């Protein structure tokens, strides 16, 4: 199967007062039709920058300094997104690939009603008679479990956070894009709304079959929604593989650390294993592997050279010199006798 | 002061004020010479002479002080009113605050100069104190609003700690917190108010609403206008000099406050 999106050696720089900073340092991956890819990492690892760069939505101070982003259109033609002209890019955006942003609080124009913003979106790309447009908009809102009558005449500030997020998801589907990029789709929402959004996304993928890239720091979300997962650290992908492979047999120490840091909901709250130290400053990266100062497997060769992604299994790669040594044992999620005791004593 | 133009503005401003305040100590006596009326600039008279043969440059140097002094007074009065009532309103809240806000809105609405004109018709505005009070009496709304907003936000912060503080301590702390925080903002507003007062004052003199007792810039403009000096090409500097002086004062002020604004609002800065 041919990938729908191929990213090769993408490098993104930001101009800062302290000089140029590389937020993305050579990322390569493929996205296949209908599949869902999760980009997981801590704040500052470059995942959001990567997401923005794919649609060339970087802020003024950011720019892609090198690399390729090859996109396969529905007619089979392959284009490099980075080379599109302004007008071509404008037409590409939303109709081929759409993005749902982080923090839905301020993603909608506060002065326009939802119906007008939906209309704007469609009209920018297609000519459509008013009634057909109306039906399309209502259709797409129902798909995200929203009542069009309630939502369309409203202004953004009249909607709740969850409703706004769903409006944004609906808006992204208006033109039936092949790829949907979501940046932290569930952050800043309460638990129940998160659940609702995740369910909606499941439904939509089943119904419409778009490919999805979502950026998050939320591992359990990835376990639910992703087919493949990539973990990012200091601007690079350090592990990439199928969701089961990554969660059951991670081969990069950082991924292991991330998994270990998720507390279990069931059973004892055993010691939380957090990764010691903090993510490095992109202005002063450690020599060799950027994770090496915090890594339990680190040795001399780790400081000498930065490892590349190398195969550790079928469709599973990890960027670690010692990937064959990395192991991970999941703690069994059962309630032990100690917790029974707590419950019995009336805690 | 990072901006170059802002710093230049500051220097010019200080220089102007210095010349106006200290200059008069060094100027020679003005001599009325009817034969030397409306002379163009020459070696003897750098800016020429006026309708009575008196040297314009001397008048310019002398003429700044009365105007600037009243301006400073007016600025001080209005700044004081703004700080006191702004913090009082925010701190006390309730109906006191509502009254203060309403009064502020009303004073903001009615055009200042018109009120001044009406007052001038009722009372003779000869004493500089009276002028300063009247000018300062209408200039405080802007600063009051800002002070009030600041105190409000500080009040929110202090609220949590207030429970642990003695009642006596809180206003004291408020004043020790507000002033350092807002010092630069208050300074800027003072200077702006002062310059606006000068502009209004010169306007009053120009219109003849305030009696002319000495040769200040406003008086020069008034005489130039009433004696038709504007319409003669020879007497150009008589009109031009005070205009340029006031404009330079405002220009230096504007550049100063622009760079202040850029410092306070980082998004306006160029990267």
């Amino acid at each position, binding site marked *: 199967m041919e990938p729908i999106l191929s990213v090769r050696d993408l490098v993104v720089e930001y101009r800062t007062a302290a000089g140029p900073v590389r937020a993305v340092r050579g990322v390569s991956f493929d996205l296949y039709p209908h599949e869902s890819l999760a980009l997981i990492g801590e704040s500052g690892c470059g995942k959001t920058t990567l997401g923005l760069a794919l649609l060339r939505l970087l802020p003024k101070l950011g720019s892609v300094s090198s690399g390729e982003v090859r996109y396969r259109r529905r007619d089979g033609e392959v284009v490099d997104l980075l080379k599109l002209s302004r007008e071509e890019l404008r037409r590409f*955006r*939303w109709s081929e690939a759409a993005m749902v942003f982080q923090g839905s609080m301020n993603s909608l*124009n*506060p002065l326009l009603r939802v119906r007008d913003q939906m209309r704007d979106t469609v009209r920018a790309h297609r000519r459509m008679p008013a009634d057909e447009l109306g039906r399309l908009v209502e259709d797409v809102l129902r798909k995200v479990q929203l009542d069009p009558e309630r939502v369309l005449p409203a202004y953004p500030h009249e909607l709740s956070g969850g409703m706004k997020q769903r409006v944004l998801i609906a808006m992204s589907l208006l033109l039936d894009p092949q790829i949907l990029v979501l940046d932290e789709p569930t952050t800043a929402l309460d638990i129940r709304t998160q659940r609702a959004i995740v369910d909606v996304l499941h439904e939509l993928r089943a119904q419409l079959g778009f490919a999805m890239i979502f950026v998050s720091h939320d591992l359990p979300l990835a376990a639910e929604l992703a087919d493949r997962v990539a973990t990012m650290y200091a601007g690079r992908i350090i592990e990439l593989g199928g969701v089961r492979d990554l969660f059951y047999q991670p081969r990069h120490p950082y991924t292991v650390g991330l998994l270990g840091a998720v507390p279990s909901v069931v059973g004892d709250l055993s010691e939380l294993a957090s990764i010691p130290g903090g993510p490095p400053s992109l202005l002063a990266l450690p020599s060799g592997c950027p994770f090496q100062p915090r890594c339990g497997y680190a040795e001399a060769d780790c400081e000498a050279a930065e490892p590349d992604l190398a195969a550790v299994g079928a469709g599973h790669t990890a960027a670690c010199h010692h990937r064959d040594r990395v192991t991970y044992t999941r703690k069994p999620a059962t309630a032990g006798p100690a917790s029974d005791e707590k419950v019995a004593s009336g805690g | 002061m990072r901006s170059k133009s802002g710093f230049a503005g500051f220097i010019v401003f200080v220089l102007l004020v210095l010349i106006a305040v200290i200059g008069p100590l060094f100027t020679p006596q003005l001599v009325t010479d009817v034969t030397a009326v409306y002379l163009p600039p020459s070696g003897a008279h750098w800016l020429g002479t006026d309708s009575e043969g008196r040297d314009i440059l001397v008048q310019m140097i002398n003429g700044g002080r009365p105007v600037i002094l009243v301006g400073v007074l007016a600025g001080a009065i209005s700044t004081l009113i703004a700080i006191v009532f702004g913090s009082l309103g925010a701190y006390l809240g309730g109906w006191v605050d509502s009254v203060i806000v309403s009064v502020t809105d009303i004073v903001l609405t009615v055009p200042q100069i018109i009120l001044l004109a009406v007052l001038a018709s009722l009372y003779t505005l000869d004493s500089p104190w009276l002028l300063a009070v009247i000018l300062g009496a209408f200039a405080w709304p802007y600063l009051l609003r800002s002070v009030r907003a600041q105190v409000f936000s500080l009040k929110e912060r202090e609220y949590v700690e207030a429970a642990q503080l003695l009642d006596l301590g809180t206003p004291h702390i408020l004043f020790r917190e507000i002033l350092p925080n807002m010092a630069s903002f208050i300074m800027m507003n003072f200077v702006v108010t002062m310059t606006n007062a000068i502009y209004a004052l010169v*306007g009053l003199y120009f219109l003849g609403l305030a009696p002319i007792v000495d040769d200040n810039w406003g008086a020069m403009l008034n005489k130039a206008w009433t004696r038709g000096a504007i319409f003669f090409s020879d007497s150009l500097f008589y009109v031009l000099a005070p205009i340029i002086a*006031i404009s330079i004062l*405002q220009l230096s002020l504007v550049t100063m406050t622009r760079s202040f604004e850029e410092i306070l609002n980082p998004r306006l800065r160029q990267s």
Partner: protein
Amino acid sequence: MVASDTEPVIRPALLRRITARIYHIYVVRRVLKSILTVYLVATGTFFLVRLLPGNPVQVYINTQMSQYGISYQDAASQAAGLFSFNPNRPLPEQYWEYLTGMLHGDLGQSLLSPSTSVLQIVFEYLPWTVFSVGLGVLISCGLGSLLGMLMAYRRGGWIDHTLSLISSLLHSIPNYLLAMLIVVFFGVQLDVLPIAQMRGAYSPGVTPEFSLDFISDAMYHASLPITVYVLTTIGGWMLVMKASTVDTLSEDFITVARARGLRDSRIASAYVGRNAVLPVFPQLAITLGFVVGGSILVEQVFQYQGIGFLLLQSVQRRDYPVLQGILLVVTIAVVAANLVSDLLYSRLDPRVRGAGGESS
């Protein structure tokens, strides 16, 4: 409270709720505030003209008595006609008379031409100021906002720097001084503008009517005052709009709008423009008040017979009823302008319309 009294007990509570709900409507609150302002200014004027020592009414009465030897009663009755309230009556009655007179449009008569009503005189001069100031502020605001937006889009470029410089320079010159400069330079020194001809609101001998000739003549005469108003206020708009546009451009929904593939023109108008222009409205009302105030000076320089011109004239002649009337009318005009701009703002920004739309 007997059982049969339960009905009246419910009604006051209901009435209170209805009043509260009406009060919550922003428009109602805003209009009430405007009426209150006008009322307070009117009362303040009354206080100034009647109650302070050495007040004009007293002076008038005394002068009449000493010059013409008439009795206090007669002098007072004369004053009553001129000032629109009777000094003979007790103070609260005077106040009431004054207020009701105001509502009926009776603002007294001119001291200098006792048969002409103040209202008549004021309305002879007012339209000219409304015309010149209104046009000036609108042009200045419109042009200034567009330029400000341009400066924000092309931040750091030569347009930004040049326009900033120009606006700083213009901002520094008080309006009447600029007016004088224009007269001096263009009128006298360079002899480009026929200053003498441009005096006044319209050429002598031309009758006011709604003809093209008259309108173009009026425009010709108003052009200089309007130019001064525009030049001296445009800097402010440019600055406000630039800062506001810069802020708006950094908002998330603009990035999202670009991601949605919207055309730049649509983004600039409905997304950036509409949001960025909001702070302009409160500024509009303040600027209007400021320019109206400045008209007293500018109209003097250009001898333009508007309300500012009348005001100065009345001050010089100590024509107090007219002064009182001018103050009132100008206040009403400015308050009305404020009201309109605030209501427009609430129309444009739906977030304000909820309960508690404080403008500060």
